[in-house]
């Protein structure tokens, strides 16, 4: 049962010793999230629980526990259409159930954030163990070709930062954004710095700025991202998961369908460099680079430092954007290095992407674990030294 929580409208910067999942909540509130719908599932549950405590204390915050994950994402889409920055959080099985609605959000260009705290599995799997098995699913889980943005985080501060980032990107590009965490990152407590809301860059969807009668909901434009009114604001538009024309009405005319689909992809593609977020450690002169993300990037970080001490010119490329795949960054190191190493807690899901762009230029080594245990620095170090 809750006791008092202090006012939420903090202006000053403050720090907290927080769980990764807690940091997600802090990030979301900072980004302006005021709507959460979800369904409990380990190891994401704390996000819902903390939201349940925090949101009702905000003047316009809404928390609702839905009957399942399908309903949760349905409600989030509805709330976003009604003008709210909205999110949900889940884990593997729930994420699988959300797939139909992820496609809907992508097709209808509804900004929202889905946090998927990956656990071991397929299926019910290992509910309380970490894994990185949902990476390709985050990209391809829904039917039909669709653009999507997938981010990840590897420590608690990044949980906050990347949640803010996720909201910003979703609002900027009218796209669902998936934040992939793993059980370790979500369940580690560390100190985080919560920045001042005023000084932090927060992006909100652009609203139409013409009289309603002149508003064409899905009009072509340079940016490719149409302005988005909220339901009830006077711009009466139609939203549909069917392929639609610029007015939003269903169409199956090939030229209109083609235009729609091209625009959906283009709006992500052309802002690639805004969306690609990576972090390099000791990379300038590296001969071997480890490409990692999530909790494994932490092991990799230590391994790289240790390898340097042992005389190997190792570097770390940490991916914070997983999709669209940060190809240019990866290609740079493929050219520069005699080998790149991709350690992952799955059977090789990001390494596929690396191999795809490798084109025979470098040697791509993989290091995989799927037993619910984190890959240790020592394991990575071993591969580093052999590479």
């Amino acid at each position: 049962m809750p006791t008092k929580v202090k006012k939420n409208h903090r202006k000053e910067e403050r720090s907290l010793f927080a769980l990764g999942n807690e940091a997600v909540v802090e990030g979301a509130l900072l980004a302006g999230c005021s709507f959460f719908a979800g369904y409990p599932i380990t190891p994401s549950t704390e996000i819902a629980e903390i939201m349940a405590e925090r949101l009702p204390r905000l003047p316009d915050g809404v928390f609702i526990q839905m009957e399942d994950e399908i309903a949760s994402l349905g409600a989030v889409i509805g709330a976003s259409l009604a003008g709210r920055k909205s999110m949900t959080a889940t884990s593997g099985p729930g994420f699988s159930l959300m797939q139909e609605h992820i496609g809907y959000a992508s097709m209808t260009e509804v900004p929202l954030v889905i946090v998927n705290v990956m656990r071991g599995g397929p299926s019910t799997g290992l509910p309380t163990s970490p894994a990185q098995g949902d990476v390709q699913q985050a990209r391809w889980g829904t039917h039909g070709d669709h653009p999507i943005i997938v981010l990840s985080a590897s420590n608690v501060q990044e949980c906050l930062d990347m949640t803010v980032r996720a909201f910003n990107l979703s609002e900027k590009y009218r796209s669902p954004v998936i934040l992939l965490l793993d059980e370790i990152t979500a369940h580690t407590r560390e100190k985080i710095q919560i920045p001042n809301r005023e000084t932090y860059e927060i992006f909100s969807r652009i609203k139409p700025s013409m009289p309603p009668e002149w508003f064409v909901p899905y009009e072509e434009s340079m940016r490719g991202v149409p302005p988005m009114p909220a339901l009830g604001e006077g711009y009466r538009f139609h939203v549909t998961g069917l392929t639609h024309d610029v007015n939003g009405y269903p169409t199956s005319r090939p030229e209109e369908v083609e235009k729609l689909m091209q625009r959906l992809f283009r709006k992500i593609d052309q802002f690639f460099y805004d969306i690609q977020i990576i972090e390099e450690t000791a990379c300038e002169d590296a001969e071997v680079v480890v490409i990692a993300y999530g909790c494994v990037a932490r092991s990799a970080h230590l391994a790289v430092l240790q390898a340097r001490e042992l005389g190997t010119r190792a570097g770390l490329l940490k991916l914070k954007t997983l999709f669209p795949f940060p190809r240019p960054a990866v290609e740079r190191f493929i050219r520069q290095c005699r080998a790149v190493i991709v350690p992952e807690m799955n059977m090789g899901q990001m390494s596929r992407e690396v191999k795809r762009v490798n084109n025979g230029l470098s040697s791509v080594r993989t290091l995989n674990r799927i037993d619910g245990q984190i890959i240790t620095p020592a394991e990575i170090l071993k591969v580093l030294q052999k590479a």
Partner: protein
Amino acid sequence: MKPPYEIQRFELRLSGLGGQGILTLGKVLGAGLALEEGYFVAQTQSYGPEARGGASRSDLVISSQPISYPKPEQLDLLVALSQEACNQYYRHLKQGGYLLVDDSLVKQTPTNIYWGLPFTTLAKEKLGMVQAANMVLLGALAHLVPFVVPRAMKKGLETSLSPKFLESNLKAFQLGMTQAKKKYPNVQTQWTSF
């Protein structure tokens, strides 16, 4: 804020049974070290069905540098509040690592070199509330471990607990510290490095 001790990487495990307040203790200790003392701390813990009365565990990695790998690899200090926990985790202790047990519960230690204090008995008998054992332990840690600074821990308790519970907890903390000091007066000098 610069922490008083330079710590390379110190790995600590609190272990025992569900209901002994181990997870809370991990949080309080971590928060104190991270927020009050400015160390880098990564705290993880066991989840899952064991949490319901089964085994319970909280790990802290403490360092003056940013922590890359957040899980302990070889423990510098193992705290065991149950025999099972002691048996299970002793092998994770690194050579020269320290073992601290509740000797009212852990009857067989795998080594003769250890610190033992009866946290649970103390809490029950001196304070009349067995749930305070974790705070007694925290007090003991504040004496036994150099960088666990009493003032910081107390401050941590003050900010995280409601006034209603604060007093009794501080009392337990004090008790632990006193008892530890009594039994191991010179312990802090034993530490060679972190």
